[in-house]
Protein backbone atom coordinates (compact mmCIF):
# COMPACT_ATOMS: atom_id res chain seq x y z
CA UNK A 1 0.00 0.00 0.00
CA UNK A 2 2.70 2.43 0.96
CA UNK A 3 5.72 1.70 -1.26
CA UNK A 4 5.63 -0.77 -4.09
CA UNK A 5 8.49 -3.30 -4.06
CA UNK A 6 10.96 -2.49 -6.81
CA UNK A 7 11.00 -4.41 -10.05
CA UNK A 8 14.17 -6.31 -9.13
CA UNK A 9 12.72 -7.69 -5.90
CA UNK A 10 9.49 -8.60 -7.68
CA UNK A 11 11.43 -10.42 -10.41
CA UNK A 12 13.48 -12.36 -7.84
CA UNK A 13 10.27 -13.21 -5.97
CA UNK A 14 8.67 -14.48 -9.19
CA UNK A 15 11.68 -16.67 -9.96
CA UNK A 16 11.71 -18.01 -6.41
CA UNK A 17 15.24 -16.75 -5.82
CA UNK A 18 16.50 -18.50 -2.66
CA UNK A 19 18.69 -15.53 -1.84
CA UNK A 20 15.61 -13.43 -1.13
CA UNK A 21 15.26 -13.60 2.64
CA UNK A 22 12.11 -14.56 4.44
CA UNK A 23 11.26 -11.10 5.74
CA UNK A 24 11.37 -9.72 2.18
CA UNK A 25 9.24 -12.55 0.78
CA UNK A 26 6.72 -11.93 3.48
CA UNK A 27 6.48 -8.18 2.89
CA UNK A 28 6.18 -8.72 -0.89
CA UNK A 29 3.36 -11.21 -0.34
CA UNK A 30 1.46 -8.92 2.03
CA UNK A 31 1.78 -6.12 -0.51
CA UNK A 32 0.67 -8.31 -3.41
CA UNK A 33 -2.53 -9.23 -1.60
CA UNK A 34 -3.68 -5.63 -1.70
CA UNK A 35 -2.06 -4.24 -4.86
CA UNK A 36 -3.47 -5.22 -8.24
CA UNK A 37 -0.79 -3.26 -10.14
CA UNK A 38 2.07 -5.25 -8.62
CA UNK A 39 0.17 -8.50 -9.22
CA UNK A 40 0.09 -7.44 -12.85
CA UNK A 41 3.84 -6.76 -12.86
CA UNK A 42 4.45 -10.09 -11.14
CA UNK A 43 2.76 -11.94 -14.00
CA UNK A 44 5.18 -10.25 -16.40
CA UNK A 45 8.18 -11.46 -14.37
CA UNK A 46 7.10 -15.09 -14.30
CA UNK A 47 9.74 -17.38 -15.84
CA UNK A 48 8.92 -19.17 -19.07
CA UNK A 49 8.60 -22.63 -17.59
CA UNK A 50 6.01 -21.34 -15.06
CA UNK A 51 4.02 -19.69 -17.85
CA UNK A 52 4.17 -22.90 -19.88
CA UNK A 53 2.95 -24.87 -16.88
CA UNK A 54 0.03 -22.46 -16.33
CA UNK A 55 -0.82 -22.72 -20.02
CA UNK A 56 -0.88 -26.53 -19.84
CA UNK A 57 -3.08 -26.50 -16.75
CA UNK A 58 -5.54 -24.04 -18.30
CA UNK A 59 -5.72 -26.11 -21.48
CA UNK A 60 -6.25 -29.27 -19.41
CA UNK A 61 -9.09 -27.71 -17.46
CA UNK A 62 -10.75 -26.47 -20.64
CA UNK A 63 -10.48 -29.95 -22.16
CA UNK A 64 -11.93 -31.49 -18.99
CA UNK A 65 -14.90 -29.13 -19.08
CA UNK A 66 -15.48 -29.80 -22.79
CA UNK A 67 -15.25 -33.61 -22.45
CA UNK A 68 -17.03 -34.03 -19.10
CA UNK A 69 -20.76 -34.25 -18.53
CA UNK A 70 -22.52 -30.92 -18.92
CA UNK A 71 -23.77 -29.37 -15.69
CA UNK A 72 -27.22 -30.43 -14.53
CA UNK A 73 -29.69 -27.82 -15.73
CA UNK A 74 -30.95 -25.75 -12.84
CA UNK A 75 -34.61 -26.28 -13.52
CA UNK A 76 -36.94 -26.95 -10.64
CA UNK A 77 -38.02 -30.38 -11.81
CA UNK A 78 -39.18 -31.41 -8.34
CA UNK A 79 -41.67 -28.61 -8.26
CA UNK A 80 -43.23 -29.69 -11.56
CA UNK A 81 -43.09 -33.34 -10.47
CA UNK A 82 -44.92 -32.70 -7.20
CA UNK A 83 -47.59 -30.69 -9.01
CA UNK A 84 -47.95 -33.46 -11.58
CA UNK A 85 -48.44 -36.01 -8.80
CA UNK A 86 -51.08 -33.86 -7.10
CA UNK A 87 -53.01 -33.27 -10.32
CA UNK A 88 -52.95 -36.98 -11.23
CA UNK A 89 -54.19 -37.93 -7.74
CA UNK A 90 -56.87 -35.29 -7.63
CA UNK A 91 -58.13 -35.49 -11.21
CA UNK A 92 -60.48 -38.51 -10.87
CA UNK A 93 -62.17 -37.02 -7.81
CA UNK A 94 -62.63 -33.61 -9.34
CA UNK A 95 -63.95 -35.22 -12.52
CA UNK A 96 -66.47 -37.12 -10.42
CA UNK A 97 -67.51 -33.92 -8.64
CA UNK A 98 -68.00 -32.22 -12.00
CA UNK A 99 -70.03 -35.17 -13.32
CA UNK A 100 -72.32 -35.20 -10.28
CA UNK A 101 -72.89 -31.45 -10.52
CA UNK A 102 -73.57 -31.81 -14.25
CA UNK A 103 -76.20 -34.48 -13.56
CA UNK A 104 -77.79 -32.27 -10.91
CA UNK A 105 -78.04 -29.41 -13.42
CA UNK A 106 -79.65 -31.67 -16.05
CA UNK A 107 -82.09 -33.15 -13.52
CA UNK A 108 -83.09 -29.74 -12.33
CA UNK A 109 -83.64 -28.42 -15.83
CA UNK A 110 -85.65 -31.52 -16.70
CA UNK A 111 -87.75 -31.58 -13.53
CA UNK A 112 -88.22 -28.01 -12.28
CA UNK A 113 -90.81 -29.18 -9.71
CA UNK A 114 -88.06 -30.81 -7.56
CA UNK A 115 -86.18 -28.68 -4.98
CA UNK A 116 -82.93 -27.35 -6.46
CA UNK A 117 -80.54 -30.31 -6.45
CA UNK A 118 -77.67 -28.02 -7.36
CA UNK A 119 -78.26 -25.94 -4.23
CA UNK A 120 -78.53 -29.08 -2.11
CA UNK A 121 -75.26 -30.54 -3.42
CA UNK A 122 -73.21 -27.33 -3.54
CA UNK A 123 -72.16 -27.35 0.15
CA UNK A 124 -70.58 -30.78 -0.06
CA UNK A 125 -69.13 -30.43 -3.58
CA UNK A 126 -65.55 -29.56 -2.48
CA UNK A 127 -65.44 -32.28 0.18
CA UNK A 128 -64.27 -35.29 -1.92
CA UNK A 129 -61.37 -33.25 -3.25
CA UNK A 130 -60.46 -31.97 0.23
CA UNK A 131 -60.49 -35.52 1.62
CA UNK A 132 -58.14 -36.72 -1.11
CA UNK A 133 -55.84 -33.73 -0.84
CA UNK A 134 -55.00 -34.50 2.79
CA UNK A 135 -54.97 -38.21 3.19
CA UNK A 136 -52.26 -40.69 4.10
CA UNK A 137 -53.83 -43.26 1.78
CA UNK A 138 -53.56 -41.10 -1.32
CA UNK A 139 -50.18 -39.57 -0.42
CA UNK A 140 -47.58 -42.35 -0.40
CA UNK A 141 -44.86 -40.17 1.11
CA UNK A 142 -47.16 -39.11 3.96
CA UNK A 143 -44.87 -40.15 6.81
CA UNK A 144 -41.82 -38.54 5.21
CA UNK A 145 -43.74 -35.33 4.61
CA UNK A 146 -45.28 -35.31 8.10
CA UNK A 147 -41.81 -34.94 9.63
CA UNK A 148 -40.74 -31.91 7.58
CA UNK A 149 -40.94 -28.29 8.71
CA UNK A 150 -43.19 -27.47 5.74
CA UNK A 151 -45.87 -29.93 6.87
CA UNK A 152 -48.86 -28.46 8.60
CA UNK A 153 -51.85 -26.25 8.10
CA UNK A 154 -50.15 -24.13 5.44
CA UNK A 155 -49.65 -27.16 3.21
CA UNK A 156 -53.22 -28.36 3.82
CA UNK A 157 -54.58 -24.92 2.89
CA UNK A 158 -52.47 -24.78 -0.29
CA UNK A 159 -53.84 -28.15 -1.36
CA UNK A 160 -57.38 -27.13 -0.42
CA UNK A 161 -56.98 -23.95 -2.47
CA UNK A 162 -56.23 -26.05 -5.54
CA UNK A 163 -59.43 -28.04 -4.96
CA UNK A 164 -61.47 -24.85 -4.53
CA UNK A 165 -59.89 -23.31 -7.62
CA UNK A 166 -61.54 -26.10 -9.61
CA UNK A 167 -64.78 -26.58 -7.66
CA UNK A 168 -65.78 -22.93 -7.20
CA UNK A 169 -65.91 -22.17 -10.95
CA UNK A 170 -67.87 -25.40 -11.45
CA UNK A 171 -70.38 -24.25 -8.84
CA UNK A 172 -70.60 -20.82 -10.42
CA UNK A 173 -71.34 -22.35 -13.83
CA UNK A 174 -73.92 -24.74 -12.33
CA UNK A 175 -75.55 -21.85 -10.48
CA UNK A 176 -75.68 -19.71 -13.59
CA UNK A 177 -77.25 -22.53 -15.65
CA UNK A 178 -80.00 -23.18 -13.09
CA UNK A 179 -80.54 -19.67 -11.84
CA UNK A 180 -79.52 -20.55 -8.26
CA UNK A 181 -78.22 -17.53 -6.33
CA UNK A 182 -74.41 -17.40 -6.45
CA UNK A 183 -74.03 -16.55 -2.75
CA UNK A 184 -75.99 -19.66 -1.77
CA UNK A 185 -73.79 -21.74 -4.06
CA UNK A 186 -70.47 -20.44 -2.71
CA UNK A 187 -70.80 -19.59 0.98
CA UNK A 188 -72.21 -22.97 2.09
CA UNK A 189 -69.47 -24.80 0.20
CA UNK A 190 -66.80 -22.61 1.78
CA UNK A 191 -68.36 -23.13 5.22
CA UNK A 192 -68.35 -26.89 4.74
CA UNK A 193 -64.75 -26.86 3.49
CA UNK A 194 -63.63 -24.85 6.54
CA UNK A 195 -65.68 -27.10 8.82
CA UNK A 196 -64.09 -30.26 7.42
CA UNK A 197 -60.64 -28.82 8.13
CA UNK A 198 -61.60 -27.62 11.64
CA UNK A 199 -63.17 -30.96 12.52
CA UNK A 200 -60.29 -32.68 10.74
CA UNK A 201 -57.91 -31.24 13.32
CA UNK A 202 -59.59 -33.51 15.86
CA UNK A 203 -60.58 -36.66 13.98
CA UNK A 204 -58.65 -36.43 10.70
CA UNK A 205 -59.80 -34.64 7.54
CA UNK A 206 -61.00 -37.79 5.79
CA UNK A 207 -63.26 -38.80 8.67
CA UNK A 208 -64.44 -35.23 9.12
CA UNK A 209 -65.52 -35.16 5.47
CA UNK A 210 -67.43 -38.44 5.87
CA UNK A 211 -69.19 -37.19 9.02
CA UNK A 212 -70.15 -33.83 7.51
CA UNK A 213 -71.36 -35.34 4.24
CA UNK A 214 -73.43 -37.93 6.11
CA UNK A 215 -74.97 -35.36 8.43
CA UNK A 216 -75.82 -33.04 5.53
CA UNK A 217 -77.36 -35.84 3.47
CA UNK A 218 -79.48 -37.23 6.29
CA UNK A 219 -80.49 -33.98 7.94
CA UNK A 220 -81.07 -31.79 4.88
CA UNK A 221 -80.87 -33.45 1.47
CA UNK A 222 -83.08 -36.43 2.23
CA UNK A 223 -85.90 -34.51 4.02
CA UNK A 224 -86.06 -31.88 1.29
CA UNK A 225 -86.29 -34.55 -1.41
CA UNK A 226 -89.11 -36.21 0.57
CA UNK A 227 -91.01 -32.98 1.20
CA UNK A 228 -90.05 -31.41 -2.16
CA UNK A 229 -89.17 -28.19 -0.39
CA UNK A 230 -85.87 -26.39 0.11
CA UNK A 231 -84.81 -26.20 3.77
CA UNK A 232 -84.78 -22.84 5.53
CA UNK A 233 -80.96 -22.74 5.56
CA UNK A 234 -80.91 -22.60 1.77
CA UNK A 235 -83.46 -19.78 1.45
CA UNK A 236 -82.01 -16.58 0.00
CA UNK A 237 -81.76 -14.95 3.46
CA UNK A 238 -79.39 -17.65 4.66
CA UNK A 239 -76.30 -16.56 2.73
CA UNK A 240 -75.03 -14.23 5.44
CA UNK A 241 -75.33 -16.98 8.02
CA UNK A 242 -73.22 -19.29 5.82
CA UNK A 243 -70.57 -16.62 5.34
CA UNK A 244 -70.44 -16.12 9.11
CA UNK A 245 -70.15 -19.86 9.67
CA UNK A 246 -67.29 -20.07 7.16
CA UNK A 247 -65.40 -17.32 9.00
CA UNK A 248 -65.99 -18.95 12.39
CA UNK A 249 -64.72 -22.30 11.17
CA UNK A 250 -61.65 -20.68 9.60
CA UNK A 251 -60.89 -18.91 12.90
CA UNK A 252 -61.27 -22.15 14.81
CA UNK A 253 -58.84 -23.85 12.42
CA UNK A 254 -56.29 -21.08 12.71
CA UNK A 255 -56.43 -21.30 16.51
CA UNK A 256 -55.50 -24.97 16.49
CA UNK A 257 -52.96 -24.91 13.65
CA UNK A 258 -50.55 -26.96 15.81
CA UNK A 259 -52.82 -30.00 15.47
CA UNK A 260 -51.94 -30.31 11.80
CA UNK A 261 -48.19 -30.67 12.34
CA UNK A 262 -48.31 -34.31 13.41
CA UNK A 263 -49.20 -37.57 11.78
CA UNK A 264 -52.74 -37.71 13.13
CA UNK A 265 -54.15 -41.21 13.21
CA UNK A 266 -57.35 -39.99 11.57
CA UNK A 267 -55.77 -38.79 8.34
Amino acid at each position, binding site marked *: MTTHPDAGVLARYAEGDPALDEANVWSVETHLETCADCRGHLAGHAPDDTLALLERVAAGIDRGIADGPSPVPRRR*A*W*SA*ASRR*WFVVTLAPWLTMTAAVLGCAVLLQLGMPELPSLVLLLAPVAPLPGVAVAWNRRTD*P*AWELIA*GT*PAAGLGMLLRRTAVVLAVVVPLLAVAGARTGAPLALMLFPSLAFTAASIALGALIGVRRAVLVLAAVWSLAVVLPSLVTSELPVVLHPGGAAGWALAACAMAALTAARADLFRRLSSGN
Partner: protein
Amino acid sequence: MRTISAAETAPATYAWAVHAEQLRVKAGRHLAVDGLDLRLQTGVHGLLGPNGAGKTTLMRALATVLKPSGGQLTLLGETVSGRADLRRARRGLGYLPQDFGFYPRFTVREFVEYMAWLKEVPKPAIPGAAQRAIERVGLTAKADAKMKTLSGGMVRRAGIAQAIVNDPQVLLLDEPTVGLDPEQRLDFRDLLADIGVDSCVLVSTHLVEDVVAACTDVILMSEGKLVFQGGPEALIAHGDQGDAGFSPAERGYSALLRRHRGGVA
Protein backbone atom coordinates in the same frame (compact mmCIF):
# COMPACT_ATOMS: atom_id res chain seq x y z
CA MET B 1 -16.81 -29.11 -1.24
CA ARG B 2 -19.24 -26.65 0.23
CA THR B 3 -18.91 -23.50 2.27
CA ILE B 4 -19.68 -23.79 5.96
CA SER B 5 -22.09 -21.23 7.27
CA ALA B 6 -21.63 -19.31 10.50
CA ALA B 7 -24.65 -21.12 11.98
CA GLU B 8 -22.88 -24.46 11.57
CA THR B 9 -19.78 -23.42 13.44
CA ALA B 10 -21.69 -21.60 16.20
CA PRO B 11 -21.47 -23.45 19.54
CA ALA B 12 -24.54 -25.44 20.51
CA THR B 13 -26.61 -23.92 23.29
CA TYR B 14 -27.98 -27.27 24.46
CA ALA B 15 -26.39 -30.11 26.37
CA TRP B 16 -28.00 -32.99 24.48
CA ALA B 17 -29.04 -33.28 20.86
CA VAL B 18 -31.83 -35.63 22.00
CA HIS B 19 -33.15 -35.50 25.54
CA ALA B 20 -36.16 -37.56 26.62
CA GLU B 21 -37.43 -37.73 30.18
CA GLN B 22 -40.11 -40.19 31.21
CA LEU B 23 -41.25 -40.21 27.59
CA ARG B 24 -44.50 -42.04 26.87
CA VAL B 25 -45.77 -42.57 23.33
CA LYS B 26 -48.81 -44.51 22.18
CA ALA B 27 -48.96 -46.67 19.08
CA GLY B 28 -52.70 -46.84 18.54
CA ARG B 29 -54.09 -47.61 21.99
CA HIS B 30 -50.99 -49.45 23.17
CA LEU B 31 -48.38 -47.56 25.19
CA ALA B 32 -45.35 -48.58 23.10
CA VAL B 33 -42.84 -46.26 24.77
CA ASP B 34 -43.40 -46.28 28.51
CA GLY B 35 -41.40 -43.91 30.69
CA LEU B 36 -38.19 -43.83 28.64
CA ASP B 37 -35.21 -41.69 29.66
CA LEU B 38 -32.67 -41.07 26.92
CA ARG B 39 -29.82 -38.64 26.35
CA LEU B 40 -27.92 -38.60 23.08
CA GLN B 41 -24.99 -36.50 21.98
CA THR B 42 -22.95 -36.38 18.78
CA GLY B 43 -21.98 -39.84 17.53
CA VAL B 44 -23.53 -42.96 16.05
CA HIS B 45 -26.00 -44.63 18.40
CA GLY B 46 -27.40 -48.06 17.67
CA LEU B 47 -30.92 -48.81 18.90
CA LEU B 48 -31.44 -52.51 19.59
CA GLY B 49 -34.37 -54.44 20.93
CA PRO B 50 -36.65 -57.37 20.19
CA ASN B 51 -39.68 -56.95 17.91
CA GLY B 52 -42.37 -54.99 19.69
CA ALA B 53 -39.89 -53.27 22.02
CA GLY B 54 -41.16 -49.89 20.82
CA LYS B 55 -38.19 -48.97 18.61
CA THR B 56 -40.25 -47.73 15.67
CA THR B 57 -42.66 -45.80 17.90
CA LEU B 58 -39.70 -44.14 19.63
CA MET B 59 -38.20 -43.24 16.25
CA ARG B 60 -41.49 -41.71 15.10
CA ALA B 61 -41.77 -39.68 18.30
CA LEU B 62 -38.17 -38.44 17.93
CA ALA B 63 -38.96 -37.56 14.31
CA THR B 64 -41.84 -35.41 15.73
CA VAL B 65 -44.29 -37.36 13.60
CA LEU B 66 -46.08 -38.79 16.65
CA LYS B 67 -47.03 -36.66 19.60
CA PRO B 68 -45.85 -38.01 22.95
CA SER B 69 -48.69 -38.71 25.35
CA GLY B 70 -46.52 -37.86 28.34
CA GLY B 71 -43.08 -36.81 29.52
CA GLN B 72 -40.60 -34.32 28.09
CA LEU B 73 -38.85 -34.44 24.74
CA THR B 74 -36.24 -31.92 23.66
CA LEU B 75 -34.50 -31.99 20.27
CA LEU B 76 -31.57 -29.66 19.56
CA GLY B 77 -32.62 -27.58 22.55
CA GLU B 78 -36.22 -27.17 21.31
CA THR B 79 -39.10 -28.68 23.23
CA VAL B 80 -41.14 -30.81 20.85
CA SER B 81 -43.64 -32.39 23.22
CA GLY B 82 -47.05 -30.78 23.69
CA ARG B 83 -48.23 -27.90 21.48
CA ALA B 84 -44.78 -26.61 20.64
CA ASP B 85 -43.90 -25.18 17.24
CA LEU B 86 -41.91 -27.95 15.61
CA ARG B 87 -40.57 -26.00 12.68
CA ARG B 88 -37.14 -25.10 14.03
CA ALA B 89 -36.37 -28.55 15.39
CA ARG B 90 -37.59 -30.19 12.17
CA ARG B 91 -35.16 -28.18 10.04
CA GLY B 92 -32.34 -29.96 11.86
CA LEU B 93 -33.87 -33.43 11.54
CA GLY B 94 -33.37 -36.22 9.06
CA TYR B 95 -35.70 -39.20 9.19
CA LEU B 96 -35.94 -42.45 7.29
CA PRO B 97 -39.05 -44.42 8.31
CA GLN B 98 -38.94 -48.20 8.27
CA ASP B 99 -41.48 -48.59 5.44
CA PHE B 100 -41.33 -45.34 3.62
CA GLY B 101 -43.57 -44.49 0.71
CA PHE B 102 -42.49 -42.42 -2.27
CA TYR B 103 -43.92 -41.12 -5.50
CA PRO B 104 -43.15 -43.85 -8.06
CA ARG B 105 -43.00 -41.47 -11.04
CA PHE B 106 -40.47 -39.14 -9.42
CA THR B 107 -36.83 -39.53 -10.39
CA VAL B 108 -34.37 -39.98 -7.53
CA ARG B 109 -33.26 -36.39 -8.01
CA GLU B 110 -36.82 -35.02 -8.03
CA PHE B 111 -37.60 -37.01 -4.89
CA VAL B 112 -34.54 -35.80 -2.98
CA GLU B 113 -34.97 -32.20 -4.20
CA TYR B 114 -38.66 -32.20 -3.28
CA MET B 115 -37.80 -33.42 0.23
CA ALA B 116 -35.09 -30.74 0.48
CA TRP B 117 -37.69 -28.13 -0.40
CA LEU B 118 -40.10 -29.47 2.24
CA LYS B 119 -37.24 -29.32 4.74
CA GLU B 120 -36.89 -25.62 3.87
CA VAL B 121 -33.39 -25.83 2.41
CA PRO B 122 -32.86 -22.43 0.70
CA LYS B 123 -34.04 -22.74 -2.92
CA PRO B 124 -30.74 -21.88 -4.65
CA ALA B 125 -28.96 -24.53 -2.53
CA ILE B 126 -31.41 -27.35 -3.32
CA PRO B 127 -29.88 -28.78 -6.55
CA GLY B 128 -26.39 -28.88 -5.02
CA ALA B 129 -27.57 -30.36 -1.73
CA ALA B 130 -29.52 -33.07 -3.55
CA GLN B 131 -26.61 -33.92 -5.84
CA ARG B 132 -24.26 -34.22 -2.85
CA ALA B 133 -26.70 -36.43 -0.91
CA ILE B 134 -27.18 -38.68 -3.94
CA GLU B 135 -23.41 -38.98 -4.38
CA ARG B 136 -22.89 -39.82 -0.71
CA VAL B 137 -25.23 -42.82 -0.92
CA GLY B 138 -23.67 -43.96 -4.22
CA LEU B 139 -26.70 -43.42 -6.45
CA THR B 140 -25.14 -40.92 -8.87
CA ALA B 141 -25.58 -43.26 -11.85
CA LYS B 142 -29.30 -43.63 -11.05
CA ALA B 143 -29.98 -39.98 -10.19
CA ASP B 144 -32.31 -39.47 -13.13
CA ALA B 145 -33.99 -42.88 -13.05
CA LYS B 146 -37.60 -43.11 -11.92
CA MET B 147 -38.09 -44.37 -8.35
CA LYS B 148 -40.31 -47.22 -9.54
CA THR B 149 -37.46 -48.69 -11.61
CA LEU B 150 -35.10 -49.01 -8.61
CA SER B 151 -34.28 -52.19 -6.70
CA GLY B 152 -35.12 -52.45 -2.99
CA GLY B 153 -31.59 -51.58 -1.93
CA MET B 154 -31.50 -48.54 -4.23
CA VAL B 155 -34.84 -47.28 -2.92
CA ARG B 156 -33.46 -47.53 0.60
CA ARG B 157 -30.36 -45.58 -0.45
CA ALA B 158 -32.59 -42.92 -2.03
CA GLY B 159 -34.39 -42.81 1.32
CA ILE B 160 -31.10 -42.27 3.12
CA ALA B 161 -30.24 -39.52 0.61
CA GLN B 162 -33.44 -37.60 1.39
CA ALA B 163 -32.75 -38.03 5.11
CA ILE B 164 -29.31 -36.41 4.87
CA VAL B 165 -30.08 -33.79 2.20
CA ASN B 166 -30.50 -31.00 4.78
CA ASP B 167 -27.30 -31.95 6.68
CA PRO B 168 -29.34 -32.81 9.77
CA GLN B 169 -27.89 -32.48 13.27
CA VAL B 170 -30.14 -35.33 14.36
CA LEU B 171 -30.44 -38.22 11.90
CA LEU B 172 -32.96 -40.98 12.63
CA LEU B 173 -32.75 -44.14 10.54
CA ASP B 174 -35.24 -46.94 11.16
CA GLU B 175 -33.88 -50.27 9.86
CA PRO B 176 -31.84 -48.61 7.10
CA THR B 177 -29.84 -51.70 6.13
CA VAL B 178 -32.81 -53.85 5.09
CA GLY B 179 -32.35 -54.76 1.43
CA LEU B 180 -28.70 -53.66 1.23
CA ASP B 181 -26.17 -56.24 0.05
CA PRO B 182 -23.02 -56.87 2.15
CA GLU B 183 -20.86 -54.46 0.17
CA GLN B 184 -23.43 -51.66 0.38
CA ARG B 185 -23.67 -52.39 4.12
CA LEU B 186 -19.96 -51.67 4.50
CA ASP B 187 -20.29 -48.44 2.48
CA PHE B 188 -23.23 -47.51 4.64
CA ARG B 189 -21.17 -48.01 7.82
CA ASP B 190 -18.55 -45.62 6.44
CA LEU B 191 -21.25 -43.08 5.65
CA LEU B 192 -22.62 -43.40 9.20
CA ALA B 193 -19.18 -42.90 10.73
CA ASP B 194 -18.70 -39.83 8.50
CA ILE B 195 -22.02 -38.25 9.49
CA GLY B 196 -21.57 -39.22 13.15
CA VAL B 197 -18.47 -37.01 13.44
CA ASP B 198 -20.54 -33.87 13.89
CA SER B 199 -24.18 -35.08 14.10
CA CYS B 200 -26.24 -37.24 16.39
CA VAL B 201 -27.20 -40.39 14.49
CA LEU B 202 -29.67 -42.93 15.87
CA VAL B 203 -29.94 -46.17 13.88
CA SER B 204 -32.52 -48.75 14.80
CA THR B 205 -31.73 -52.28 13.71
CA HIS B 206 -32.29 -55.88 14.69
CA LEU B 207 -28.75 -56.82 13.64
CA VAL B 208 -26.53 -56.80 16.73
CA GLU B 209 -23.41 -57.13 14.56
CA ASP B 210 -24.24 -53.94 12.60
CA VAL B 211 -24.39 -52.02 15.84
CA VAL B 212 -21.11 -53.35 17.20
CA ALA B 213 -19.33 -52.59 13.91
CA ALA B 214 -20.77 -49.17 13.17
CA CYS B 215 -21.85 -47.55 16.43
CA THR B 216 -20.02 -45.74 19.19
CA ASP B 217 -22.91 -46.22 21.59
CA VAL B 218 -25.50 -48.97 22.05
CA ILE B 219 -29.05 -48.43 23.31
CA LEU B 220 -31.08 -51.46 24.26
CA MET B 221 -34.84 -51.16 24.57
CA SER B 222 -37.37 -53.67 25.81
CA GLU B 223 -41.09 -53.29 26.47
CA GLY B 224 -40.95 -49.54 25.93
CA LYS B 225 -38.16 -48.93 28.42
CA LEU B 226 -34.44 -48.29 28.27
CA VAL B 227 -32.59 -51.42 29.39
CA PHE B 228 -29.00 -50.48 28.64
CA GLN B 229 -26.93 -47.66 27.22
CA GLY B 230 -23.17 -47.90 26.80
CA GLY B 231 -20.33 -48.69 24.43
CA PRO B 232 -20.16 -51.91 22.38
CA GLU B 233 -17.47 -53.27 24.76
CA ALA B 234 -19.80 -52.78 27.72
CA LEU B 235 -22.52 -54.69 25.85
CA ILE B 236 -20.08 -57.53 25.14
CA ALA B 237 -18.94 -57.58 28.78
CA HIS B 238 -22.47 -58.46 29.90
CA GLY B 239 -22.47 -61.80 28.03
CA ASP B 240 -21.35 -65.21 29.33
CA GLN B 241 -20.55 -68.37 27.41
CA GLY B 242 -23.90 -69.76 28.55
CA ASP B 243 -25.98 -67.02 26.89
CA ALA B 244 -27.72 -67.46 23.54
CA GLY B 245 -26.01 -66.02 20.47
CA PHE B 246 -23.26 -66.62 17.93
CA SER B 247 -21.00 -63.73 18.89
CA PRO B 248 -19.89 -62.04 22.13
CA ALA B 249 -22.14 -59.04 21.34
CA GLU B 250 -25.19 -61.25 20.74
CA ARG B 251 -24.51 -63.05 24.01
CA GLY B 252 -24.31 -59.71 25.81
CA TYR B 253 -27.56 -58.66 24.14
CA SER B 254 -29.47 -61.77 25.21
CA ALA B 255 -28.01 -61.67 28.75
CA LEU B 256 -29.22 -58.08 29.23
CA LEU B 257 -32.69 -58.89 27.88
CA ARG B 258 -32.96 -62.00 30.04
CA ARG B 259 -31.97 -60.06 33.15
CA HIS B 260 -34.45 -57.28 32.31
CA ARG B 261 -37.32 -59.74 31.84
CA GLY B 262 -36.34 -61.50 35.04
CA GLY B 263 -36.36 -58.20 36.91
CA VAL B 264 -39.75 -57.19 35.50
CA ALA B 265 -41.50 -60.53 36.04
